[in-house]
């Protein structure tokens, strides 16, 4: 193993198809028109010295090192800013160039500290490399003059010197080492799109400045790490590198946070992770990252991790550590007893959208083949199950239609119920880049999310609808498109069922769907809806990106169908730049759905009632599979309360915190006789568990994740599991204890079984992924290289189906007792229930959940910013602190759900999507009033959680 070194071509690739041939150092080179001479040289294997250039950003031409000479042209142009031309004869090394470069380097080094031996960048310093490359042997100017290096100059205070900024928990900024190449500033602008950095001052006073000469933490910096990655010196350095030293080998793997699925190089020293660096060849992230994937991996070695299996008779007992064998035998005996006593259907399992495809596949196999029923579900139930249903109905397959690269060809992006700059930050950055190039943006969201207006990005339309009225707005947009004659009839006639279209068109054309009519209850002025509809229908390539603000409603599935209708009516399907793109919350939501985690379907989205599909698996597994659908998570909890569901195996999901109506979830879990939690930490659900099986992190196992663009990415083991076993091994041992003859020696063998049984995965294997890097399913004989774009020549189901989408108001309504609408969301630094990110330094950005409330509503209630307030709904109440902001409209309040002490889900109700039971998280009628402190529920809950986390023979861990 060795460190992966990526080639930096100096400037971005050109997309031109016209080729140009020139000569560089006597070698003939042919490159696309628009390529820089620097990049062309690198293509030919000639590395021109450079400091300010990087292929992650546009050429800047400031460092004066990359000069070349061109025959017939005067002077020494910078090779990064000079494009190739036919027949050029370029020299990269001449006596004149050598002298000039050495002189330039000499000036750089005359204002740079010479502590190379003890410098954190030692071994990874481009400045040192360039000094070596140009043959710098002496600095004639001395170090006594004006400089930025020394705190004191000849005994006097040096006003030009600035101390190190260590305010960010993950990296330091040392101005003394800065060469002002502007790479960090440009990375922040061009790659991340935050514009938090600038160069302050001029001439010799120029220096990098975060915000208005603030420290990094006080500035707008979002800690994505792009600047640190770009820095050629030790000016911006990961604290982990300062502490540990340079890595000696690296392994490419996939981030385990959101559904973007960024590829990273895990840079290691032995089994110690030194840093995570985004991989440029990663097709989802193209070398970019966010604060979570780049820095927030500390949870993997956190002291709270449970490393030994534990058992207890009653949930009021302290935990007792046992051997793995004892734990497996106990679970097997309990599940068999329960099934004997209460029937075969009285147990089930939950697969994890955070675990690998292989692990998920095994859990559903354990339920179907080992338990003999279909009671298996996954947390996609509470996020994207309506996507599965809605897109399945309209297009015939339950997945996003595009790859992330597609956004580079989008002319009008519509974002509905998603907050990409917080929830899917790397995609957010890619989208913002396209918007800066001139694409238009429409945002449909109750809240003014950052992307509505941020530096160099402004939405053409923001439709701030009342929570719960998505269907009304989208049907209104369709009304405008149809009645104003903007439908793409050629596309519809060719690709969709025309009579279904006619039926749908006459439905949406009804006057009661007009924006003027729906304005009364959506709260969105009609002219905004009309403007947005016209822009989407006529603005070129239109792409719809949506998130849980679409799905987590009583009409979640209907909204997904409405989105599909809009894409079809405008012909925005089947080519780059368009499509319907669900942004998936968790790393492997797509994969867990693909792997047959839903109770009604086997891997590859095939219903359990389909005889041929069942037969495929029955033959291989040697068991009979039930043809009846199993229970979904909410149904399991209802059945538990009713006494017919008694045992559950939960892998990597915290339903007590993440699922709605906490009291109901608690009652369901409390009614069960054997709750098995398989997780990294004693999560909230484990408060109700009888068996705890320690889990492993994504750094500790091999496998695959499938991201939101259907991309199957490898996850590679970089360290031994602290708990001893990867999760797939634990599930396998459990299955063996239950009498199953499973003998997988490596996850690749599980993938082989998936490929053999699931047509859309037919060609996928670890060898093939090794060769291809990654593939997007379907990947089979018909699409051997995978499918970046779906429905290219026709829909999977044949003809696209237009479906009527009648708006039905949710029964969760405001009234005198609960006059405000609560909606929920995510923040950049935290992830989901926070089990991972709360155990990292990310808490410095978000230490608690706050309730966003409009100044008008706050004033009426006598609430000041930061006050403790009581938040109550029909389901329950909790307390948290207020944050007064006009991001939310009057009548709407908003909070995140990352902290268990807040328990936002005590408030949410058990209303759910009509088709899939996906909970209606996004609309809850609430009242808000000043408060003195925690609610009774919070106090009781804390005490119960503390009691239930006791481990016999161990002191209570202080959290």
């Amino acid at each position, binding site marked *: 193993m060795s460190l992966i070194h990526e080639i930096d071509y100096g400037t971005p690739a050109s997309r031109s198809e016209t080729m140009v041939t020139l000569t560089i150092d006597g070698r003939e080179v042919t490159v696309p028109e628009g390529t820089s001479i620097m990049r062309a040289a690198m293509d030919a294997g000639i590395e021109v010295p450079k400091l300010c250039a990087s292929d992650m950003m546009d050429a800047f031409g400031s460092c004066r090192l990359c000069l070349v000479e061109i025959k017939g042209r005067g002077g020494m142009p910078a090779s990064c800013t000079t494009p190739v031309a036919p027949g050029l004869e370029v020299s990269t090394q001449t006596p004149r160039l050598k002298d000039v470069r050495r002189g330039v380097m000499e000036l750089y080094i005359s204002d740079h500290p010479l502590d190379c031996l003890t410098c954190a960048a030692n071994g990874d310093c481009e400045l040192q490399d360039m000094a070596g490359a140009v043959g710098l042997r002496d600095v004639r100017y001395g170090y006594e003059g004006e400089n930025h290096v020394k705190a004191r100059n000849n005994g006097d205070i040096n006003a030009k010197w600035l101390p190190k900024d260590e305010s960010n928990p993950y990296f330091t900024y040392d101005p003394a080492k800065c060469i002002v190449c502007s790479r960090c500033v440009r990375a922040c602008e061009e790659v991340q799109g935050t514009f938090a950095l600038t160069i302050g001052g001029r001439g010799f006073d120029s220096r990098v400045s975060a915000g208005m000469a603030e420290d990094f933490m006080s500035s707008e910096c979002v800690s994505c790490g792009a600047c640190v990655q770009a820095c050629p010196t030790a000016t911006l350095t990961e604290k982990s590198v300062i502490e540990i030293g340079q890595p000696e080998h690296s392994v490419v793997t996939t981030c385990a946070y959101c559904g973007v699925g960024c590829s990273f190089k895990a840079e290691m020293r032995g089994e110690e992770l030194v840093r995570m660096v985004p991989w440029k060849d990663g097709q989802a992230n193209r070398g970019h990252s966010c604060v979570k994937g780049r820095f927030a991996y500390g949870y993997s070695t956190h002291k709270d991790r449970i490393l030994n299996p534990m058992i207890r008779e009653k949930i009021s007992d302290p935990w007792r550590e046992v051997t793995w064998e004892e734990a497996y035998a106990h679970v097997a005996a309990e599940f068999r007893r329960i099934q004997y006593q209460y029937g075969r259907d009285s147990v089930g399992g939950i697969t994890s959208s955070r675990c690998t495809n292989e692990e998920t596949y095994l859990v559903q196999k354990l339920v179907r083949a080992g338990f003999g029923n279909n009671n298996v579900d996954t947390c996609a139930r509470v996020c994207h199950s309506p996507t599965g249903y809605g897109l399945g109905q309209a297009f015939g397959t339950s997945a996003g239609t595009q790859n992330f690269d597609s956004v580079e060809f989008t002319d009008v992006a519509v974002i509905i119920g998603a907050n990409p700059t917080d929830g899917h930050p790397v995609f957010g950055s890619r989208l913002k880049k396209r918007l800066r190039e001139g694409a238009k943006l429409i945002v449909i969201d109750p809240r003014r999310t950052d992307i509505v207006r941020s530096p160099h990005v402004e939405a053409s339309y923001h439709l701030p609808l009342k929570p719960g009225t998505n269907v009304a707005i989208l049907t209104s947009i369709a009304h405008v498109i149809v009645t104003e004659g903007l439908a793409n009839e050629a596309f519809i006639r060719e690709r969709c069922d025309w009579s279904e279209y006619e039926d749908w068109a006459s439905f949406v054309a009804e006057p009661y769907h007009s924006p003027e009519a729906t304005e009364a209850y959506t709260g969105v002025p009609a002219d905004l809806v009309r403007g947005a509809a016209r822009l989407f229908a006529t603005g070129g390539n239109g792409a719809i990106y949506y998130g849980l603000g679409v799905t987590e409603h009583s009409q979640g599935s209907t909204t997904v169908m409405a989105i599909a209708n809009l894409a079809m009516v405008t012909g925005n399907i089947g080519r780059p730049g368009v499509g319907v793109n669900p942004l998936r919350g968790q790393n492997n939501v797509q994969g867990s759905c693909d792997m047959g985690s839903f109770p009604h379907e086997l891997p590859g989205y095939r*219903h359990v009632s389909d005889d041929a599909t069942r037969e495929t698996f029955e033959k291989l597994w040697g068991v009979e599979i039930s043809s009846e659908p199993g229970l979904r998570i909410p149904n399991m909890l*209802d059945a538990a309360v009713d006494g017919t569901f008694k045992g559950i195996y939960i892998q990597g999901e915290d339903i007590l915190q993440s699922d709605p109506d906490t009291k109901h979830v608690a009652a369901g879990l409390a009614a069960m006789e054997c709750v098995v939690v398989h997780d990294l930490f004693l999560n909230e659900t484990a408060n109700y568990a009888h068996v705890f099986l320690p889990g492993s992190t994504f750094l500790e196992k091999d496998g695959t994740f499938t991201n939101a663009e259907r991309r199957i990415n490898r996850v590679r083991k970089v360290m031994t599991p602290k708990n001893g076993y990867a999760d797939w091994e634990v599930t396998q041992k459990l299955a063996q204890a239950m009498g199953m003859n499973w003998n997988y020696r490596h996850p690749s063998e599980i993938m082989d079984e998936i490929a053999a049984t699931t047509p859309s995965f037919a060609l996928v294997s670890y060898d093939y992924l090794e060769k291809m890097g990654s593939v997007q399913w379907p990947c089979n004989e018909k699409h051997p290289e995978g499918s970046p774009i779906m429905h290219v020549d026709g829909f999977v189901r044949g003809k696209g189906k237009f479906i009527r989408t*009648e708006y039905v108001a949710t029964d969760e309504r405001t009234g005198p007792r609960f006059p405000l609408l609560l909606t929920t969301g995510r923040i950049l630094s935290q992830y989901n229930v926070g089990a991972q990110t709360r155990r990292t330094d990310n808490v410095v950005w978000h230490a608690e959940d706050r309730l966003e409330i409009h100044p008008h509503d706050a004033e009426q209630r006598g609430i000041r910013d930061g006050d403790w307030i009581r938040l109550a709904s029909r389901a329950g109440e909790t307390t948290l602190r207020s944050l007064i902001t006009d991001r939310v409209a009057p009548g709407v309040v908003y909070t995140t759900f990352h902290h268990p002490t807040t328990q936002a889900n005590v408030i949410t109700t058990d209303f759910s999507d*009509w088709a899939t039971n996906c909970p209606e998280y996004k609309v809850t009628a609430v009242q808000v009033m000043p408060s003195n402190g925690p609610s009774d529920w919070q106090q009781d809950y804390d005490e119960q959680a503390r009691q239930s986390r006791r481990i016999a023979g161990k002191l209570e861990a202080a959290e």
Partner: protein
Amino acid sequence: MSHDTNAKLIYMANQIATFFKSQPQDEAAQGVATHINKYWEPRMRRQLFQHIDGGGEGLSPLVLEAASKIKRPQAA
């Protein structure tokens, strides 16, 4: 079965009916039945039939119309 669960099932069935009511009329009842057959576990359907057999109070007429097309699970 608890009263709560029963009320929830009626609510869910009616939600499904509300969606299909807006679809072309000749597909509505079949749509409700197909949906319930595909996604409801047998004990949920059994409970629904117990309620229908007991008069079906509170159920949308479309659910009642669809009942003959819903697969009746075997008795527990």
